[in-house]
């Protein structure tokens, strides 16, 4: 565990040893990466487990991945063993002394989100992240997270069945993320993860088919970082008065990426695709952040959070 006190952050009631968080869907159920020598769950403040649904799901047909310029598309399709197996078989095998574990709740209906959350509430999991980017099967398959009212309904349903910290993972695929954040705070969200992947497509020119069997998928990696930074900045404006923290994410690979998210308003920062570039990137980012604090004379990462100095004279000449 990072014992540098400058990295210890409080995140909606959770004490994190580091602001670094491993992101859902990239690190399985928390133990897969620990086979790599030199990798330790102690190096991060929290780990978001793979998206979990009420029943087991097999997920999408392959290909599920496509590399793109500065990033990748994925269409995994929520392959998971179902919440009962996660609680009964996987959680008992996790070492909760090393880091905090966050469940990632997914569903096709509001009721499914509620039931999965209820099951996790009665488990040792430290917090619950709601992945509202899943399609709402009862209302035309549009992702819950694309619409502020649908998002709020999911949050409200989950809030009703748990006292654990509730983190809403916001989608960039919508018109006004600020309005969505507002509605989710009213519905009881304790924190936000910003952003989930941006929907996209890759095409094979020879077959003239999409590379992904699912036709479309979520874009992640450095390609989405500028979008993610702006969204974190926007959501931070909404969250600041309520002291609601954000896990900033989308394309963090190097130290400066992480620091940019902190400056934009994130209290913690998430790493997903960055692990595919370099499975040991967390240690490097941590070292880099320590150097940054040394060089800037800041005493704690908290001092970096939201320290963005906007241009106040940003006008367009006519």
């Amino acid at each position: 565990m990072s014992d540098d006190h400058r990295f210890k952050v409080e995140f909606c009631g959770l004490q994190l040893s580091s602001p670094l968080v491993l992101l859902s869907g990239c690190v399985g159920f928390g133990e897969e990466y620990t086979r790599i020598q030199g990798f330790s769950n102690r190096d991060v403040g929290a780990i978001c487990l793979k998206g979990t649904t009420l029943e087991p799901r097999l997920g999408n047909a392959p290909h599920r991945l496509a590399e793109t310029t500065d990033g990748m598309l994925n269409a995994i399709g929520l392959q998971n063993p179902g919440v009962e197996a996660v609680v009964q078989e996987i959680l008992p095998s996790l070492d909760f002394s090393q880091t905090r574990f966050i469940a990632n709740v997914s569903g096709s209906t509001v009721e499914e989100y509620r039931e999965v959350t209820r099951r996790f509430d009665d488990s040792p999991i430290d917090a619950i992240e709601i992945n509202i980017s899943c399609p709402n099967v009862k209302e035309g398959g549009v992702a819950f997270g694309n619409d502020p009212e649908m998002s709020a309904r999911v949050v409200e349903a989950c809030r009703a069945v748990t006292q654990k910290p509730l983190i809403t993972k916001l989608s960039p695929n919508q018109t006004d993320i600020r309005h969505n954040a507002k509605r989710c705070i009213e519905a009881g969200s304790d924190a936000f993860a910003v952003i989930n992947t941006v929907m996209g497509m890759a095409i094979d020119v020879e077959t003239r088919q999409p590379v992904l069997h699912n036709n479309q998928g979520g874009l992640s990696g450095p390609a989405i970082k500028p979008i993610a930074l702006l969204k974190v900045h926007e959501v931070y404006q909404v969250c600041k008065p309520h002291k609601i923290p954000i896990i900033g994410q989308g394309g963090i690979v190097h130290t400066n990426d992480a620091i940019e998210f902190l400056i934009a308003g994130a209290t913690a920062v998430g790493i997903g695709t960055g692990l595919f570039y370099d499975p040991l990137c967390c240690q490097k980012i941590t070292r880099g952040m320590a150097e940054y604090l040394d060089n800037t004379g800041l005493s704690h990462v908290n001092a970096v959070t939201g320290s963005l100095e906007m241009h106040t004279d940003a006008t367009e000449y006519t």
Partner: protein
Amino acid sequence: MESEQNPIFEECARVTHHDALAAQQFVLRLSAPECARHAKAGNFLHLQCDPQRALRRPFSIMRCDPAAGWVEVLYKIVGQGSAELAARKSGDMLQCLGPVGNTFRVHENTTHPLLLGGGVGIPPMIFLAETLRGNPGLHPLAILGSEIPFPFPTRPSKILAPDVPKEVIAAMPLLDDWGIASRLTSLQGYPGCFHGYVHELAERWFLNLDHAAQKGVQVFACGPNRMLEAVSEFCRRHALPCQVCLEEYMACAVGGCAGCVVPYRENNRMVAMKRVCVDGPVFNAASIF
């Protein structure tokens, strides 16, 4: 087949040899002591072709020397990643994650391991052949096919393979040197090669074996999916145990992203999506094709 739980190493590997062969094929030797020490036949390396790329590229380990600390892969340029890899020179460093994946398992009652490799599916068969070297109870045969020039000079075999048609004499010299019989196939008319596909020569050989030998055959195959399907079909017809080494697009290569899956069947019913990186790359053919 079992999933693998062995340690995986992230090494900053130095390119020690990089040989360009015919038809944009290359043999790359890396100094990567931990990968070399822990590698088993069937394992692969996840190589960073360029630090700016989100995804690394998986390549089977063809040979390794645990004492000298090197691993070797054979690859063909098919796209940008492999082209970037081809530009690496001796002395260059590159990040290498490995060894990843499970291994081939030779059954106890196997007497005649049949190793089938197609194109850039040849490398894991060479690794497997090396592990079978000098085993007095085994009579392995490797049948390797290619529609582009073979990534090694071919020559008439010094090892008899009585159940293979007489005119098929071309072999891989390295396997010859190891005392392992090999024969080559191609539709390109290369001298001494069988004119046809790998599985066709395999079936001819199998039908010529006596009954006792037939009972001891176990098949191992790696190559394009079309080849693996044909091999699986041949094995099904003769009720032969068969392990295939698969390919799929990969991101993490440690089982974390579920990106590299293949539909997995039991009793003709799809029961699971298995990750090629850690549940494979070696699977029982009957569960896949």
